[in-house]
């Protein structure tokens, strides 16, 4: 496992934390936490194999959050001196005083053991920032050129985002943690253009982002070379494929598509802050309201969903959250019934959960920790079927791979998703690609129609780097694992017909 970056460790984090927390104590807080965070983001974009955009951006700053007379206060700045840290504590207390006038319930936090001097580093081999940009560009360019050389590929977009995240956290209870994570998101899109007709078609790689390093582009965790080799032929078939007839279909959904459906219809719906209304004006609320805990029939009996901040290579995986809580795995849906929520310490205390399950997270020092999503994953059946076996049980259906368009309502009922590839299933066999498919459903109907989950061999960890939540807006990276799955009788729309054509 890699070491903590010495350049981050060289920052005067303890001196700043002592200054801020000491000043906060003097001002009479019941809790204060200090974060020093450095988030470095690399971005490359190539158009037709040529470098179109490059950036290497770092955000570095400190934040103090306090509970003063029962009210939250928060302040963030970039100046890294003890004086500035003390001033931040004063600002945070000043904002708490404004909050107190406008808030009802005093804030108290769920108890948590203290973890002095804890460290944690994510599981990766090579920090992409350690790879020269020329080498990163060369790899993207090489794969782009292979696509461009193929018949029927007129344009290629390639992009690579990678992040090195360092967090130092300390609180007045005595916890201090120093953590480091790396994540990477390579994407390649092949485009076919029919200039005569004025039409265009595209297909993107489906590996998605991962909590891995540069090794991900060299074949560890995903075989981009193999996928790039297949993509032109798959795109050519897509271009010639018939448009779907709208109606009810059985769906076999590959994990590269279903992860996003899980994210939207389970992940967000089981965030307790949404269920309690804290996000009502923005991200929305949830149909899975708190009174339905342990009774709501979320889906069929084969549906088992966990929240997890410990899975290796998970994008939301970390050792300790931004409230000093040690992370763990926990049940959200067991045998189809809602049994848990994602929590922070305030909500865990307010709703009697005892301890938090470690889901408080800020995307940078400039922002307050919110309840953010764990890696929420659908569990496979230990003796479950293969993809072929799932397909063999379908008379008239569609097999869906790769995510594309997504949208869901503010209570997480009605969703609509498209994908990268769709295959018609006829009498238990694949019968060529289809086009213009979107599936649309209401969350509990959809999960209620889940007939079978595949075996562990069909399991894949998908995910996103750009999950948005909160005001001011914050982004978070999160993974979702799932096996291949079979759903019966799902509403399929034709997107061309939806456009009125």
């Amino acid at each position, binding site marked *: 496992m890699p070491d903590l970056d010495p350049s981050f460790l060289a920052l005067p984090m303890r001196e700043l934390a002592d200054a801020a927390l000491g000043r906060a104590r003097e001002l009479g807080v019941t809790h204060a936490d200090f974060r020093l965070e450095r988030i470095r983001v690399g*971005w490359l*974009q190539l*158009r037709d194999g*040529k*470098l*179109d*955009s*490059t*950036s*290497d*951006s*770092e*955000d*570095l*700053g400190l934040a103090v959050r306090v509970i003063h007379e029962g009210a*939250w*206060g*928060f*302040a*963030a*700045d*970039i100046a890294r001196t003890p004086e500035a840290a003390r001033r931040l504590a004063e*600002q945070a207390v000043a904002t708490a005083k404004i*909050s107190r006038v*406008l808030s*009802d319930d005093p804030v108290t936090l769920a108890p948590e053991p203290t973890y002095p001097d804890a460290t944690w580093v994510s599981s990766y081999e090579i920090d992409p920032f350690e790879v020269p940009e*020329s080498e990163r*560009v060369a790899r993207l360019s090489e794969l782009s050129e292979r696509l461009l050389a193929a018949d029927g590929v*007129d*344009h290629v977009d390639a992009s690579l985002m990678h992040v090195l995240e360092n967090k130092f956290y300390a609180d007045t209870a005595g916890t201090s943690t120093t953590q480091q994570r790396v994540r990477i998101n390579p994407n390649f899109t092949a485009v076919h*253009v*029919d200039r005569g*007709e*004025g*039409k*265009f078609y*595209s297909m993107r790689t489906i590996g998605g982002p991962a909590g891995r390093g540069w090794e991900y582009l060299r074949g560890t965790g995903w075989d981009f070379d193999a996928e790039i080799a297949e993509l032109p032929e798959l795109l050519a078939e897509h271009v010639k494929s018939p448009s779907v007839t709208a109606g009810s279909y059985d769906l076999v959904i590959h994990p590269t598509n279903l992860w996003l459906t899980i994210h939207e219809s389970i992940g967000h719906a089981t965030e307790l802050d949404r269920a309690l*209304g*804290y996000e009502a*004006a923005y991200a929305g609320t949830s149909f899975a309201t708190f009174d339905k805990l342990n009774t709501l029939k979320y889906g069929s009996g084969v549906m088992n969903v966990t929240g997890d901040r410990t899975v290796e290579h998970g994008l939301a995986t970390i050792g300790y959250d931004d409230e000093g809580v040690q992370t763990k795995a926990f049940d959200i849906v067991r045998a189809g019934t809602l049994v848990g929520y994602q929590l922070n310490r305030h909500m865990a205390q307010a709703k009697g959960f005892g301890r938090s399950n470690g889901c408080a997270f800020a995307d940078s020092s400039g922002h*307050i920790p919110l309840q953010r999503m764990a890696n929420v994953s659908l569990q496979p059946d230990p003796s479950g079927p293969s993809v072929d076996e799932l397909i063999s049980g379908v008379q008239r259906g569609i097999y869906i791979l790769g995510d594309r*368009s997504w*949208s*869901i*309502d*503010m*209570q997480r009922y*009605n969703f*609509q998703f*498209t994908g990268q590839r769709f295959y018609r299933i006829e009498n238990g066999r694949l019968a060529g690609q289809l086009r213009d498919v979107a599936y*649309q459903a*209401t969350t509990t109907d959809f999960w209620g129609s889940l007939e079978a989950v595949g075996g562990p061999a069909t399991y894949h960890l998908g995910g996103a780097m750009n999950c*948005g939540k909160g*005001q*001011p807006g914050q982004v978070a990276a999160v993974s979702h694992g799932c096996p291949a799955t079979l759903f019966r009788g799902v*509403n399929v729309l034709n*997107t061309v017909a*939806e*456009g009125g*054509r």
Partner: protein
Amino acid sequence: MAQVQEFVEQALQLSTVDGCVVVAEEHTETNLRWANNSLTTNGQMTSRAVTVVSVAGESAGVVTRSVSTPDELATLVKASEAAARDATPADDFAPLVEPYDTDDDWDADPATTSVDVFARFAPELGTAFKQAGKNGRLLFGFAEHQMSSTFVGSSTGLRRRFDQPNGRVELNGKSDDYTRSVWAGIHTRDFSDVALDAAIEQLNTRLDWAATSVELPAGRYETILPPGAVADLMIYAYWTASARDAEEGRNVFAGPNGTTRIGERLSTLPLTLRSDPADPRLACAPFEIVTASEGGLQSVFDNGAPVTATSWIDNGRLANLARTRSWATRTNAEPRLFIGNLMLDGKGSASLDDMVASTERGLLLTCLWYIREVDPQTLLLTGLTRDGVFLVEDGTVRGAVNNFRFNESPIDLLGRITEVGRTEYTLPREWNDYFTRTAMPPVRVPDFNMSTVSQAS
């Protein structure tokens, strides 16, 4: 001169490569957030980002750091130069912008904001919480004020600076059983013009309308879209309006036989979609500020280039697409740089209320939400209605209708609009994290595609 301008000058002095542009932003922001008639979070933040674009030959190294000392600045310049020397030629290379005359006050201190901007608003909000509680209603929302001072300095001698204030208020009102929900949004430069009372009154009116609920099935409905909903649809079309993508045949603005749709009539109504950095209420930077090139829409090589009022759609015809200086050179065309505001005007005079009054039967929307692209070929977008769909019959609101998922293309809609109201300043609901400065009219669409019903309330 403050530290940030000195950093720009020092970085340029340290530069040893063929060209260098420094973009330095000092940013302060403050916010209040509330739920269930109670403040939930607040904060004030200060940040600085210094971006150094080093140019070696036709290659660029673009590095951004939160610089706070001269040593860190020197490290940043070196990192940017190393990246430039290591890079392959940039596809969007263009010569750096030469100096020209400006009225900018380069030396003035960066503008800032603080929690004091809420001095009048916060107590009014407290009063509104109490009043809502008495009426069995709940308020949720967010108020934010940001100030960014951006300094662009180039090795060509160009110096430009711009102070961008940006404020927004989002108000969500609900009945205390959460079954009724309405929304109002306000864009402001400094909070002096925020009329919270009027906005709360609007919420209360709409919550009263929702006392009667009407269930309607999916289908195509005559629909009045308010200015904010129109803004959200037009912003997506604007973000897609890359001349390069169109000329390569791969966006909705591509035409048959290798052409683009520039010149095509998109609407028989006199609709004009334009951006103007000099609009008094929506003023934005009159020059390009880019810290990372963006897929054919914006280029770091264009930093500091003047941007002037541009019509994207002129009297119903597609007139211009966004064109970087690099792509303009390659296509023998004039550059059309991306601008940070967007206005639609159709020479209409009717207010939203007037349009409701003249409706025989139709739906009045409050806003659109979770808008995502379904089919780039037609720019088909999907999304939800949110916080109030109202049935209008014989010019009167009859009650609140269930929410719907829609599937519509903004480009297609332009050709189907039958009535355009009076343009007003508005806050888009969906995209106001990224794009706030808009002025739009309410519009009437005779056959808006409400594809499926959403149970969300």
